[in-house]
Structure formats: structure tokens, C-alpha cells
């Protein structure tokens, strides 16, 4: 057992015990906190899977330096599939649409019309499909990668075309499953509200956070050209996230329809409004200005610091997406938020570290400095 794995497992066990206590004391708070933590980690891991497949489809050579790291993150998917259990068991506690009678009268009619989609058995079946799609594609991509590594070591023919076919198909199903899961698991927290761009928003945030995680964890042996590739992607996806977030806000703000603005009413006022501004500044304004500099994009330590900021902002953003459903009046931090993060992150890290074993996170050819930009 590696050290990373024992640390992750320890955190998961401590978190799980705290969560058990929490479920008994405040079940709704505990399960909603768990959903927040789960969505935070899951979107990062799915971002890594999408990055791996994107690089296979586009034949990106720069990515070789980060492929081991990204595939190690993808290795957390089976563990995350198991960690989804509390959400599936707690559907009735987490989601207002599961108990329509508790909804305010104005929205009850709208939600009743959505019952064909939003009902507990169908929700659970769909969730199992999403989890199966991600886990199977993730495992196939990982296996293909190890085959390619072996072929490369034996200097046999290039296997990239096979990986690109698998990745092209995988991108479509993983993307669809991610979009539908974000509608099901996060958007339906406010069952009367909808936004068609919501799935892209969740993807953009997760992908940016994953790039930030790669920037933080990138081995020190990586050269400035590869570092700069991550820097450029961080800048790109910081802008992309801001673009998607602003599109959604502008369309809802300018239409000003009562059924649509409700979601922003709780999220843009009072202490939730402060969080929204902090996220907008920390996830777009600051990284945008810092990442304009070419020298900074090539500096691994500077990128790691920006990555740490972006990771913190990702946690805060998912918190802002999930928690106003439970505490619409204002931010109400709970010790269970931290416990849930500890449990899910620990479980995912332990799962990924177990799959990784003792393999290094830096690609062999990078260590010998063969790979150019």
C-alpha cells in the first residue's frame, strides 16, 4: 500500500464516520453536503477522462507529458461509482421533487408535469447508466493506454488510430452522460427551474478544475514547453467558463421571466451573492490577468499557485450551485460540508492510488527529455 493510498483511505474513513453521525443528526444537510462534495470531485475526474480522449482524437503530442497523471486521475472512476451510493439511497431527502407535497403551491404544478422524468425509480436507473458509461469508457481508455505503452516499449506499430476511434465514440457518450447527470443531480435541486446551458457550465467548471489539478500535480521534470501547454489551456478554459457563466446569466437577466430568475434570486443576493462575485473574480479575472504573461505560463511553480486558486474556486462554485437549494436565505456553512469533502476526496484518492500502484506519474519519455512541444 502506497503512502498516498493510506492517507486517502484514512481521510475517507474519518469522513465516512463523521458522515454517519451527520446522517443521524441532520440527514438532509448531510446528504446535500455529500452531493456537493461528490459533484466537486466527480466533475474533476470526468474532466480528466475527457482531456485524455480529446488528446487521442486530436493526436496532441504535448499531452504525452501529462498522460500518466491524467490517466491516474481517471483511475478514480470505479471508486466514484461506488461512492455515488449515498446519493441514490438519499434521493428522497435531497431532492424536493421526490416529495412534491412539500413544494410551494406555485411550483407544484410545474414539477408535477415533469414527473415522467423526475421520479425516484427512473432517476436511479439513469444514474446507474451514467455511472456505467463513465466507468466502462474510463476503463477502456486506460486499458488501451497500457496496450499502447507496451507496444511502444516493444517498438511495434503505432496504435494511436485505435485509441482515436474509441475516444471519438467515448467523448459523445461521456459528454451526454455528463450533461444529463448535471441536469438530474444538480439542476433538479430547483425542480421548477431549467437552463439548457447548465450541462456545459458544469463541464466547463470541472474541466478547468482538472487542468488546475494537473498544474498543481505536474512533475517538476516537465519542461517549459509542456508547462506552457497547460498554461494556455488554463487561460482558455478560464475564459470558456466565464463565457458560459455569463451567457446563462445574461439570457436569464435580459428575459426577466419569473420562473427563470428564481434560481438567481437566491444565488445573487446576500451572502450567496458575495460568493458569486468571489468565484467570478477568482476563477476568471485573476487567472485571466495572471495567465496573459508568456513567462508565467512557462513557470511551473506560478502555474501550480494559480492551479491551487482555481481548485479552491471550483469547490466554492459547486457549493454555490448546490447549497442555496437547502439554504436559500444565505450561506450556512456546516461541519458536514468538510466531512463530506474529506470522505469523497479521500475515497477517490485512495481508489486512484490503489489503481496506480507504484508506477510514477511522470511519463518515461518526458523524464529523458525526448518530447518536444
Amino acid at each position, binding site marked *: 500500500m502506497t503512502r498516498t493510498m493510506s492517507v486517502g483511505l484514512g481521510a475517507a474513513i474519518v469522513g465516512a464516520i463523521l458522515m454517519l453521525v451527520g446522517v443521524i443528526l441532520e440527514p438532509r444537510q448531510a446528504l446535500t453536503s455529500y452531493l456537493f462534495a461528490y459533484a466537486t470531485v466527480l466533475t474533476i475526474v470526468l474532466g480528466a477522462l475527457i482531456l485524455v480522449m480529446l488528446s487521442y482524437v486530436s493526436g496532441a503530442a504535448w499531452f504525452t507529458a501529462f498522460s500518466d497523471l491524467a490517466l491516474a486521475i481517471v483511475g478514480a472512476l470505479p471508486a466514484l461509482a461506488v461512492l455515488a451510493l449515498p446519493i441514490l439511497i438519499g434521493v428522497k431527502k435531497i431532492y424536493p421533487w421526490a416529495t412534491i407535497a412539500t413544494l410551494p403551491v406555485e411550483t407544484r404544478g410545474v414539477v408535477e408535469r415533469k414527473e415522467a422524468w423526475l421520479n425516484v425509480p427512473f432517476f436511479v436507473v439513469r444514474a446507474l447508466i451514467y455511472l456505467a458509461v463513465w466507468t466502462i469508457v474510463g476503463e477502456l481508455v486506460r486499458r488501451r493506454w497500457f496496450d499502447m505503452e507496451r507496444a511502444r516499449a516493444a517498438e511495434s506499430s503505432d496504435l494511436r488510430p485505435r485509441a482515436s476511434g474509441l475516444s471519438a465514440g467515448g467523448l459523445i457518450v461521456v459528454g451526454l452522460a455528463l450533461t444529463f447527470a448535471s441536469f438530474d443531480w444538480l439542476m433538479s435541486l430547483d425542480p421548477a427551474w431549467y437552463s439548457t446551458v447548465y450541462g456545459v457550465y458544469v463541464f466547463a467548471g470541472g474541466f478547468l478544475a482538472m487542468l488546475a489539478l494537473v498544474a498543481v500535480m505536474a512533475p517538476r521534470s516537465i519542461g517549459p514547453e509542456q508547462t506552457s501547454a497547460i498554461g494556455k489551456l488554463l487561460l482558455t478554459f478560464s475564459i470558456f467558463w466565464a463565457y458560459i457563466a*455569463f451567457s446563462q*446569466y*445574461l439570457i436569464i*437577466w*435580459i428575459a*426577466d421571466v419569473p420562473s427563470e430568475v428564481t434560481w438567481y434570486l437566491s444565488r445573487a443576493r446576500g451572502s450567496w451573492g458575495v460568493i458569486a462575485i468571489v468565484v467570478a473574480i477568482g476563477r476568471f479575472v485573476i487567472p485571466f490577468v495572471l495567465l*496573459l504573461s*508568456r513567462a508565467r505560463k512557462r513557470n511551473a511553480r506560478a502555474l501550480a499557485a494559480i492551479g491551487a486558486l482555481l481548485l479552491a474556486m471550483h469547490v466554492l462554485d459547486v457549493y454555490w450551485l448546490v447549497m442555496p437549494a437547502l439554504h436559500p436565505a444565505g450561506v450556512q456553512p456546516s461541519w458536514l460540508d468538510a466531512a463530506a469533502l474529506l470522505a469523497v476526496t479521500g475515497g477517490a484518492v485512495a481508489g486512484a492510488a490503489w489503481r496506480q500502484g507504484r508506477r510514477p506519474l511522470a511519463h518515461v519519455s518526458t523524464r529523458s527529455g525526448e518530447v518536444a512541444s
Partner: protein
Amino acid sequence: MRRESHGPELLAEFGTVDAMLHAIDALGDSYGEIETYTPYDVPDVDGRLGLRPSRIGWIAAFGGLCGMVTAYGIQWWADVHAYPLNVGGRPLHAAPAFLLVTFEGTVLGAALATFIGLLLLLGFPKLWAPVDEVEGFDRAAIDRFWIAIPALANENDRERADALLHEAGALRTVVVGGA
């Protein structure tokens, strides 16, 4: 970036990038400001010549800022002061709606500043330089690599530079410009 040419220059033609880089190293920094002419961007040259990063980034940023302020300002002036219209009770100063045009204005300003700034930095409207008179210099845009150093007044120094260039693998050397 083209420097102002004041006197005669010593030109050397090379068949490969490596030979040219080798020559730059061989010359060191005792021969003034060295200029290179290559068919494509050679990143290694910047460091060896001690070039500072181009100023074009700052010019683009300044242009973008001007475009941003102008675009926002026009909308603010038109919607709040000149032609105030009540659109479904929305505020006259509708910042989210203004941001779209502000973004486009920023891009336009940055693009124009980059285009004009680059032309000016490159020496426009100067359409001719002495090097253009050298037979075969046009191959600097195809497959040859050229170095230009300010030709030295001292006969001995010039000969030594000439010898260094040939030693480094120059196909030929030419003196151009000046009196």
C-alpha cells in the same frame, strides 16, 4: 524588429540553421547589434541575441483597453443620456447587456492596434533597405539563413569578423550600404 541602418553592413549567408546559430555564438557580443533573416521563426535566436520580448503585446493590450472604454462609453452615453428608453422596466444603465458590445469593441481595438502597431514596429512605410540589393538575398524567405552585422570601420576587425563567419560555415559574405 528592424533597427535603423546607419552604415555599411556585413552580410553572411548560411545553408542551415545550425551553421547560422553557430556563427552567432562565434561572434559573441563584440560586434554590435546582430540582425538575422530566416525563412521561419527560429526561437533559439532570441536568447542568443539577447533580444527583449516584443512590445506588440503591450500595444495590443492598450488598443484593447481603448476599444473597451469606447464601446462601453458609447452605449452608456446613448442609453443613459442621449436617448433614454424604458425597456420593460429594465435599468437604463444595463451593464450585462452592454458587455457584449464592450467585448467586441475590445477585440476590435486590440486587433487594429496589433495590425497598425506591427507595421510601425517593422519600419513601415520604409519599403527598401540596402540588403534588398544583394543578389540572392530573397532566398532568406525560402531556404537560406542570413546574418547582418554592422560593418566595422577598422579594416582588421572587419577581416576578423569575415574570417569568423567563414569559419562558422558561411557560404559567402557581402558588404552592403554605407557610402
